């Protein structure tokens, strides 16, 4: 694997794998801004193989693996030759409909990966959300730049690093600058947050969490209601949630989110077990 230094290199490498293939398969759906940030921070490596291209993105103590292959058969053959799969902690996200992911799951499992977590995408239409009287002691504010480390600490303590695509500090700082992290504080301590990304008519909740020390204060409700009320131009709200986290799914359902049919299977290699 070699460091990727330009976005053009990525597209060129994808083209190398896609060519005229009619059965092209991939799990790589990078937004251009994110791709550029990964490259700028030296997080992205690439390797071109016969009719397949692989990318590794560093994340804390492991790597996310992305593939682009001219067919599933090519992927099956080439992935087993990747050295990193045998020596590093590697996680792979497979996104699609549950029915459509079976073949790719089988290929990855044959290459030594195991099913680690399943997330489902929930969506709600962007109909208006009625404002509600504020909750006592739960004023909602946009995070400021001094909150970055506390936000990172709360996210790392609350979510799974392999499955939840946790942000780096620089991503958190960018989100704060874009006023896309809402917080509730209690006596100066970060008690709850909602981290989101709004792009035009679509808004994604990336993380919604209440510090366990502040549960049952309705801070989570306050921050979610503030989010839904203030994003009033949005037509489509989406988010990913662990399928087996019934409590979280129920809470999102309460706010009108329902499954939209997309699944993300997170597959991890055996190195992640140590």
């Amino acid at each position, binding site marked *: 694997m070699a460091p990727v230094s330009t976005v053009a290199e990525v597209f060129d490498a*994808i083209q190398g794998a896609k060519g005229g293939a009619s059965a092209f398969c991939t799990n790589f*759906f990078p937004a*251009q801004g994110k791709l550029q940030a990964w490259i700028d921070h030296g997080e992205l490596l690439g390797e071109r193989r016969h009719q397949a291209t692989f990318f590794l993105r560093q994340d804390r103590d492991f790597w996310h693996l992305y593939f682009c292959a001219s067919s599933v058969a090519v992927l099956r053959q080439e992935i087993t030759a990747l050295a990193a799969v045998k020596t590093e902690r590697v996680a792979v996200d497979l996104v699609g409909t549950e029915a459509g992911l079976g073949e790719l799951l089988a290929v990855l499992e044959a290459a030594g990966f195991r099913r680690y977590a399943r997330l489902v995408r929930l969506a709600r239409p962007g109909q208006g959300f009625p404002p509600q009287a504020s909750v006592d002691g739960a004023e909602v504010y946009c995070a400021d730049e001094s909150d970055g480390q506390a936000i990172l600490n709360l996210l790392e303590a609350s979510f799974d690093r392999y499955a939840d695509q946790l942000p780096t500090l620089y991503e958190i700082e960018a989100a704060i600058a874009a006023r896309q992290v809402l917080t509730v504080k209690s006596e100066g301590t970060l008690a709850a947050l909602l981290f989101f990304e709004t*792009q*035009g*008519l679509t808004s994604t909740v990336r993380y919604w969490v209440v510090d366990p020390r502040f549960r049952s204060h309705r801070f989570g409700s306050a921050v979610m209601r503030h989010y839904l009320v203030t994003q009033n131009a949005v*037509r489509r709200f989406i988010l990913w949630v662990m399928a087996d986290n019934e409590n979280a799914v129920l809470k999102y359902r309460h706010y009108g989110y329902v499954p939209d049919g997309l699944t993300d299977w997170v597959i991890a290699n055996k190195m992640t077990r140590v």
Partner: protein
Amino acid sequence: MKALPEILKEIRPEFDFAASSDFIADGMLDSFDMVTLVATLDKTYGISIQGTDIVPENFKNLQTIEALLRQCGVQL
């Protein structure tokens, strides 16, 4: 054969694509939708859109997607 607006409507039924000049900036298509759209266009029109062409500029609006299809030999 399905027309382009029909294909877009199947991918994201909640949006009025005819009313937008920039599907990406307007949040109507995300990167996953774009790859889904490419796969659907490949299958519908019997083409193979090149990886280097899967960039937001080519999926900004109906006109840019139609231009991409013409470039791939589709007669619209």
